[in-house]
């Protein structure tokens, strides 16, 4: 279906892709595998016409092509589902799906009926049970992701590129997606599938292509590969999977949440009577399906919903009133938000300024910011956390996802927080960076901090937590100690409601 010959793409100062040769077959799912920064996204942007200046040659359906833009790539039959959602919130599902390819009736006006019907059909194949006239803003993230997929299906493209399509959807939705992919495969379409979740790749992919440092390292049939082998190819060396090891948590109570509720207008409580404790040196993992209220629990604890929430928070046995993030920070509770780009970092600012942002008091001299102190502070944390950046003056936007996540962590450490709230701490970062993140978490609890970690990756929750709380529909449905937790009983508790 598609082959490339010696694709090379240079950015000022870096070679993102170097002589990439690959072959993507019709009727097959090809997994593109590589660490962050390996060049996957750049390659996909070239294939889908986002980048138009590159060296080398692309052959699509045996013809040499050079797309002049995304529209040209679409017309030729290549659709891409981007990792970031590109939907317009205040348009309906139908309007979003048909954006740019609206159907017209005989009078040249929008043919709403036909579009609505087609949208409904697409939603059905994807098992999304909402009306197509619903506004995208009212959908959950997982559903929005499915709409992105519907958009790509509408184009009826011959080659569909999926960039991390499952990063925001639930296990059930993943199953649906895989069913759809299987149908597409039977129709003879080619699928390029990019994901950090290796287990998924083994389930769905026929072939693999490993990229490392902008070069194609290897390709072949997925069946011949093992999990460890694949990781070795990606990283270029052996990586030990994080071992389950516990620094036996103290039994000193650090944080206690008592009857935390979060009300919603005209609906059942988003959080209902959530009570639990976190001890010193303990990692409490919170697992739940999309919409279970995990993120809301962290947000409420951090003081982001003061008007709608109730309940008490105790730190070291003392009742603390938290009405805004500043109160939480003062009390020693800090949050690493789920979406680091949107909520965690000022991407256009230098690394050092992001690190010092919550603790500017520490770099002041007589009320004035002291540049030298700030650099010392930034360098200290860059070194401690092993943040890979040319220097502390680098603009944060230019760093990789894993390093950005470390900066979000670094900015809090100077304040010596007691409790870290981590919301999906390893989303979208590669295996290596993930393991480093786990190691850092162990180090921090070793110093007596408490961590509450929300994650939708079951294996992550199982490996890292001392204790697992399972949430469903705003309630805690199970509390399982690490020794007793299995994929089975955790998942069951997450699904079982009423």
């Amino acid at each position, binding site marked *: 279906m598609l082959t490339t010959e010696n694709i090379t793409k240079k950015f000022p100062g870096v070679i993102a892709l170097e002589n990439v040769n690959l072959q993507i077959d019709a009727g097959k799912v090809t997994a593109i595998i590589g660490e962050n920064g390996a060049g996957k996204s750049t390659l996909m942007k070239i294939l889908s016409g986002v980048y138009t200046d590159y060296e080398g040659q692309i052959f699509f359906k045996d013809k040499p092509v050079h797309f002049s833009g995304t529209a040209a790539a679409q017309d030729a039959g290549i659709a891409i589902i981007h990792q970031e959602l590109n939907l317009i919130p205040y348009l309906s599902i139908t309007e979003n799906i048909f954006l740019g390819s609206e159907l017209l009736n005989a009078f040249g006006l929008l043919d709403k009926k036909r579009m609505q019907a087609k949208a409904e059909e697409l939603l059905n194949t994807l098992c999304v049970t909402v009306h197509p006239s619903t506004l995208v803003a009212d959908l959950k993230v997982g559903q929005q992701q499915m709409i992105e997929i519907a958009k790509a299906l509408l184009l009826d493209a011959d080659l569909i590129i999926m960039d991390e399509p499952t990063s925001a959807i639930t296990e059930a939705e993943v199953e649906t997606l895989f069913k759809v992919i299987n149908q597409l495969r039977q129709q003879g379409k080619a699928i390029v599938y990019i994901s950090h979740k290796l287990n998924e790749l083994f389930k769905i992919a026929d072939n693999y292509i490993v990229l490392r440092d902008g070069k194609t390292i290897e390709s072949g049939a997925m069946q011949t590969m093992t999990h460890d082998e694949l990781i070795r190819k990606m990283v270029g060396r052996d990586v030990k999977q994080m071992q389950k090891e516990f620094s036996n948590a103290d039994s000193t109570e650090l944080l206690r949440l008592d009857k935390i509720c979060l009300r919603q207008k005209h609906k059942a409580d988003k959080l209902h009577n959530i009570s639990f404790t976190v001890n010193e040196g303990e990692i409490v993992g919170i697992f739940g399906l999309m919409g279970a209220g995990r993120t809301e629990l962290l947000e409420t604890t951090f003081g982001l919903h003061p008007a709608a929430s109730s309940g008490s928070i105790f730190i070291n046995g003392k009742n603390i009133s938290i009405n805004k993030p500043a109160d939480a920070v003062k009390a020693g509770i800090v*949050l690493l938000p789920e979406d680091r780009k949107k909520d965690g970092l*000022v991407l256009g600012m230098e690394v050092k300024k992001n690190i010092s942002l919550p603790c500017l008091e520490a770099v002041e001299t007589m009320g004035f*910011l002291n540049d030298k102190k700030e650099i010392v502070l930034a360098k200290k944390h860059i070194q401690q956390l092993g943040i890979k950046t040319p220097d502390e003056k680098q603009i944060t936007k230019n760093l990789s996802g894993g390093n950005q996540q470390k900066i979000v962590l670094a900015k809090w450490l100077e304040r010596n927080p007691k409790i870290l709230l981590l919301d999906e701490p390893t989303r979208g970062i590669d295996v290596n960076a993930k393991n480093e993140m786990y190691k850092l978490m162990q180090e921090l609890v070793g110093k007596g901090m408490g961590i509450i970690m929300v994650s939708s990756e079951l294996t992550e929750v199982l490996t890292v937590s001392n204790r697992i709380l399972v949430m469903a529909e705003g309630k805690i449905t199970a509390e399982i100690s690490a020794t007793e937790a299995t994929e089975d009983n955790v998942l069951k508790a997450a699904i079982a409601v009423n």
Partner: protein
Amino acid sequence: MMNLKQYKNSLGKLQSLIALFILCIVFGLLSDKFFTVANGLNVMRQISVNICIAVGMTLIILTAGIDLSVGSILALCGAITAGLLKNGIAIASANLFIGFTILGAILAGILIGALLGFFNGFVITKFKVPPFVATLAMLTIARGLTMLYTNGFPISSFSSSFTFIGGGWWFGLPVPVWVAAVVVVAAIIVTKKIKLGRYIYAIGGNENAAKLSGININRVKIIVYTIAGALAALGGIIVTARLDSAQPNAGASYELDAIAAVVIGGTSLSGGRGSIWGTVLGALIIGVLNNGLVLLDVSPFWQQVVKGGVILLAVIIDKMNTKSE
């Protein structure tokens, strides 16, 4: 590679300076009156009010806000200062009369400006009214209050110690230029050297991240709008002293000149990027342009067209630079 990038970066910062330089050369060649000390001082005096306002506007725009009310606040506070100087506060029923010294009247004017700015900030943060709408309302409200206070008539002729603020000289420079210089230096310290400045940039860069970093963003915004209100009042006092008269329609469309200076100076309207220094250059460019076109006897109608063109050009060049990064 890095060197080239650094070179390009510093070129980006210098581009307003280069533009100013070219403008000066062109006007110097076309008019022999342009490169005279008297004309230079004249330009500086003319732009000093715009600089005061534009500095406040820069702080606001850095937080990704906007303030359309500064022109009206300028008029109201100028009139109030003038009224207090002239008539004091007389309450006939209580047989009470409060007279004001010059300093007292000035402080009262600035205080009113700060209060109106505070009100802007309060409405914007507390009720989540978009800054454009909140300050548009204030634009009308403050203009109406000015008319009410003055009955639509100018308040004129003050003592020479008051008009000194607008027309006097001190160490070889016009007094308003000194005032503007102090404002600029203070604002540079605020933006570069203290926490508040860092918070302003952080909020404009990513409000969510700033909030989740424990920064009280509402407080920062209110402070910024309050400062802008006070600086608009300061501008009003200078204008009143300069004309020896508080005109009820003073300051009309001054907010647009201030925004123009900020934008020409390279500050991004979406916040988080820009500088006070850039705004000073922007105000200078507008000032030189106005002055040069007057010296060349260009019709005032054409002057407006040219000014608009320059604003567009500045933003287009800026966009092209940031795109290539």
